[in-house]
């Protein structure tokens, strides 16, 4: 809930469930999320996430999940391009 948590969380968006209403994008205080060409929400600046929980609480389609990065060391080796949104597929 605060700035000390910056960069410690993993934001996942399920594109199949997202309807692109833009509430999360508009109100995200760290501007972590953006709408992509398909009009769906995507994670662009995950390292800026301060874990306020706004997007998760206000997503009407339950399409956003914010959780801890599981193992920080392991995550470092295999992160970079995997950080963007991954689909769950319903």
């Amino acid at each position, binding site marked *: 809930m605060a700035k000390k948590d910056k960069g410690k969380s993993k934001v996942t968006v399920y594109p199949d469930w997202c*309807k692109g209403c833009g509430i999360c994008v508009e109100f995200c205080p760290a501007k972590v999320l953006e709408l992509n060409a398909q009009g769906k929400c995507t994670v662009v600046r995950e390292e800026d996430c301060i874990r306020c929980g706004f997007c998760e609480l*206000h*997503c*009407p389609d*339950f399409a956003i999940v914010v959780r801890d990065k599981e193992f920080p060391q392991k995550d470092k080796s295999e992160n970079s391009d995997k950080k963007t949104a991954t689909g769950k597929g*319903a």
Partner: protein
Amino acid sequence: MSEITGNEIIHQYLRHNKKFPHVLCAGCGHGIVLGTLIRSIHSLGIPRDDVVVVAGIGCSGRLAVYVDFNTIHTTHGRALTFATGIKMANPKLNVITIMGDGDALSIGGNHLIHAARRNIGVTALVLNNNIYGMTGGQSSPATPLGSTTMTSPYGQLDKSFDTVELAKGAGANYVARGTVFHVRKLEKIMTEAIARPGFSLVEAITPCHTQYGRKNKYKSPVDMYKWMKKAAISVERYEELPEDQREDRLPIGVFVAKDRPGFEERYFAMKAEFQKKTVKGGK
């Protein structure tokens, strides 16, 4: 992995064999209310078999379809009557009704006031989106004065119902109002409403951009959330405001909180008393 939080809790309570994403429009607040309801029930630790969700007709009626509690989708405006029957048949259940503004205030208006008067132990959620959304945007009893709808193209002529004042006057045990922008507050209110005995009414202000917003100068669903953020004010601060500044503001919070016993408690107490008397008389 630490314990699960947020939307992952909600995912556990959904019926995944139903079609997702749900039917509601992009930016509709009903999904947020459903999520808040699930989190409230989860935080109270009530087993899902002890929860009954009774929904009426309308956009809000669809919510009961998606959650894995005991659910029924009832006739228009009669969610509270079904809920009364369920509560009397098995008072151990936590009965929650989900109604829209048209459902609760117009078609089921009489049921609402009499359920409140009777103080039956049911939690009534009134999802107020100011309009009949599902049927094409006709003006409802909660449509604000002067706003444009499909059936009032030159502006609504009637004053809207104040749900909170109505429930207060009818004698509800617990009356509160929240908005889907202020989710934490809504969750707190809802948790308290479910935990309390007697009739509790929670009015949740949710935006309907598709039918209401587009006709009333809200360009996107986000604009409606911005309006809620701007207009909502806590009851305590609202009461301190001078009369002339109150007009556009929306007081949110708890309006009435009493602990009167519910109808079912009084009924079963009376029944036990008569049974005792009969046994004595028989001897």
